């Protein structure tokens, strides 16, 4: 079992991709950082050198850059995988995650968790992106259900949703909610936009 794993790992390390294999989402190494291909445009003068103009996101910094390659050039693949994990707890310095199937645990510092921290509640599931088996990025579930710990009392009878008010959630995130939503209620939020979706009946 262990031997098999090592063989696979070595093969992963050696893989490289040529410009014509650059597809959106492909993970490659560029300037020693793991990156994801966003866009790849083939540029070829009728009688000249063919180029690929590539848009790439650096997965460590989140920055998007443009880079040109000669067609046929290649980049080493990055050992980057998205793994579904459960968020366990924070010990102050690190946040701890677990792969539910294997009970394997990973710890991330606050910098790695980044913006995701404001959506993470103990036991919630999320996606942890691993680079060479170390956490690189944490992405919360698209929709989370969290309770409101602080908000102004709303006007009863207002069901229009127009206007709204700020509400602080149990994880520290602040979202705009309709006036009728009350302290202590659980709401559903889209983490990609930070927008209130609905109340959750318990």
């Amino acid at each position, binding site marked *: 079992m262990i031997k098999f794993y090592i063989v696979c790992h070595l093969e992963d390390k050696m893989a490289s991709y040529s410009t*014509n294999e650059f597809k959106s989402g492909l993970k490659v190494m560029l300037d020693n950082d793991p990156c994801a291909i966003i866009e790849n*445009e*083939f*540029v*070829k*003068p*009728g*009688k*000249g*050198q*063919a*180029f690929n*103009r590539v848009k790439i996101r650096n997965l460590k910094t989140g920055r998007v850059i443009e*880079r*040109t*390659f*000669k*067609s*046929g050039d290649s980049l080493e693949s990055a050992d980057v995988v998205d793994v579904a994990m459960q968020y366990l707890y924070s010990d102050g310095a690190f946040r701890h995650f677990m792969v539910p199937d294997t009970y394997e645990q990973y710890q991330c510092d606050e910098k790695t968790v980044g913006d995701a921290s404001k959506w993470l509640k103990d036991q919630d599931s999320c996606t942890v992106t691993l680079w060479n088996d170390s956490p690189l990025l944490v992405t919360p579930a698209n929709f989370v259900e969290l309770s409101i710990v602080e908000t102004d009392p709303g006007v009863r009878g207002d069901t229009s949703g127009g206007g709204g008010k700020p509400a602080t959630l149990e994880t520290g995130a602040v979202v705009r909610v309709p006036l009728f939503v009350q302290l202590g209620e659980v709401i559903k939020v889209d983490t990609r936009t930070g927008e209130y979706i609905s109340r959750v009946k318990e």
Partner: protein
Amino acid sequence: MLKEWQPTCSKEALRIRAQVLADIRSFFLVRDVLEVETPLLGHGCGTDPQLDFFTTEYGCSPEEDRLFLQTSPEFAMKRLLASGSGSIYQICKAFRNGESGRFHNPEFTLLEWYRLGFTLSELMDEIEELLTILFKGHKHLCYPQRFSYEDIFLRHTGLNPLRFSYTDYCDYALRVGTPDAVTLCGYDHNLWLDFIFSHHIQSLLGQNAICMIYGYPASQSSLARINRRNSEIVDRVEVFINGIELGNGYYELTDAQEQSARFDREITCRQERKLPTVVKDKHLIAALEEGLPECSGMAIGLDRLLMLLTSNEKIDDVLNFPLSRA
């Protein structure tokens, strides 16, 4: 939602393609240019290291089992010219391996024509006439433009394309935000020219107008003749509309020795870059030795022309079945 078996282009694109083909045929009919067909499958192929070809296995004769799909009908058409055909044109498919993208499909349609006795500027006049007729009723075109390669380079970059200055070229790349050009191009002048032209010049050429660039550097000669007055440039023209490269033409090289030497250089280049080998087309050399009449020739990509006529952004929008559905 389109199903996989269906064409990717609209019915309107099919109709305009048919119209364009009919217009081209009547254009050349009245000018007494003969329509011809030459083989798509042949024993030889172009040696241009920038063009990758498809090879096929022929089942019949064991000693010559490798056949090539043609990257252009140029060699066969020149053999017809040498045999006394007079001015000719052809509408055919051409095949280029590995070319795929917004403006490329590995199988595409070419219009190629040769005019006996035409100089490059007479050819440019005819290109203008033809494109003006084809655009009529589809798109308004402004007055056509002509620039020499040197002028357009200087105008848009401040660089002299005929004199390579490593520091000037690097300074330019850093100034315009493409520092990656420095490591990519190094001391390769031609690569710099291709990089700068395709990244910083081409998209600006021919806004709603036919824009022709002529007088390419001699290092980018391909099959064009060296200019009589200035040996640093060749009599080659490229045509652009809305930044899209539509075609390429030459005042044709007729010197068999010079042509043979250029083929040898390209074959050496292929070996250096470890590209698939190809032998030089001995039939073409023999035809040139026999005598190719003075002529100018032009090739235009009809799929890209259709993209412009129908205001489509992708070549797939004007092909019925691009490679993914072919």
